[in-house]
């Protein structure tokens, strides 16, 4: 672990000194995750690719100003901002329907489990669940979507998500929770009866 951290610190130092190859090594390690994140935020592969490429180029241009220790969080912050900018631009140009507002501290509504058959308790483990979840993600407010993806897909902790999204911890907790409930509700509405046991 320390060796990896040392190697990354050395790559950061070289990249900040203008070593393009060092920056490429740093970027390549995060390329896949950045694309995955941008795709789930935007919903279209070509937009996700453009956003990530633009974000990495922007990161290279500003690597000299990078002061932190987590290049990963820094790159995700840039890519997240780029994706949100694109979503806003789409909305301005009428390319997207209005998103539901981010409801702040209002508690989320929990859908009740449907009654009756067929038994679909295993839906969450199947391919169908992925399609349901991906569709549900695109319907929740972008702030919730961002926080939820950063937490559940990319594995950032709450403090890191706060730094990436420039939000307070309390706001991060609320967004993750409401986003997660929204995804859970989407699954429930398709017949999911919750985890066995």
């Amino acid at each position: 672990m320390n060796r990896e951290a040392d190697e990354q610190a050395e790559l950061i130092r070289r990249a900040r000194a203008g070593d393009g190859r060092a920056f490429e090594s740093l970027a390549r390690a995060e390329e896949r995750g950045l694309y995955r994140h941008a795709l789930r935020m935007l919903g279209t592969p070509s937009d996700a690719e453009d956003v990530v490429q633009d974000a990495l180029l922007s990161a290279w241009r500003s690597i000299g100003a990078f002061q932190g220790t987590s290049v990963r969080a820094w790159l995700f912050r840039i890519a997240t901002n780029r994706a949100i900018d694109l979503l806003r631009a789409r909305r301005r140009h009428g390319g997207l329907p209005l998103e539901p507002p981010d409801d702040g501290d209002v508690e989320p509504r929990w859908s009740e489990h449907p009654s009756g058959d067929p038994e679909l308790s295993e839906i969450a483990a199947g391919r169908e669940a992925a399609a349901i979840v991906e569709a549900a993600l695109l319907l929740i407010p972008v702030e919730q979507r961002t926080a939820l993806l950063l937490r559940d897909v990319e594995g950032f902790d709450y403090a890191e998500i706060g730094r990436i999204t420039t939000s307070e911890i309390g706001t991060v907790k609320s967004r993750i929770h409401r986003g997660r409930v929204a995804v859970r509700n989407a699954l429930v509405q398709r017949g999911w009866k919750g985890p066995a046991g």
Partner: protein
Amino acid sequence: MREPPGPPDVGMSEMGPHPDLELSAYVDDALDEPDRARVADHLAGCATCTARARELSATAAVLRALPDPRPSRSLVPPLARAPAWYAPARLLSGIASGVFALLFLAAALGPLGTPRAATTAAAPAAAPKDLATGADGRAPGVGVAASASAAAESAQRLDNAASASPGTRDAQPAPPSAFAVPASPARASSEPAPAGPAPLLWLGLALAAGAAAVFLHVRMRAG
């Protein structure tokens, strides 16, 4: 198997208010210790919140298990490009390699390869002057540095030619030569030309230029 319908979104239980907004942070172990302990105490006596916490945890697991898509192209901008002069240098090296290879073939197989054969016969006439002026004994027309053995051999032939030429002998008697052998006019014209370094030189240049072209190509691809 199925959980009962959930309580109102803002509600109370016998254990106090439902900690709904903290359930996700609880399952993520992201609460401070006092809050974590409070939520844990509530869950111990509230089946509804326990079921919800389990569903939230399962939902997070579903999100983690989403397919991992791949981009259709590399998204990392190529920053470490090769210097701009690599491309023309690679082209010139490739051309030079071809030219040198042709020169090598011409020198090895064609007229360029046997310059000595043509000039050896004429050497006796011109050589005495070279000898008298202390020339290095290099046969004219060879063009590329002759080896020491070739020079010695040429001097030996010239010694022989000088001793066989009455005019030359009258003008300047030849000194005794350690290489002197009986004169043989036929030998001067029929002696096969020794292999000169010219073909090898062209071959070496062709290989060097080719290696340079390959090196530049690899560096450009890597960059």
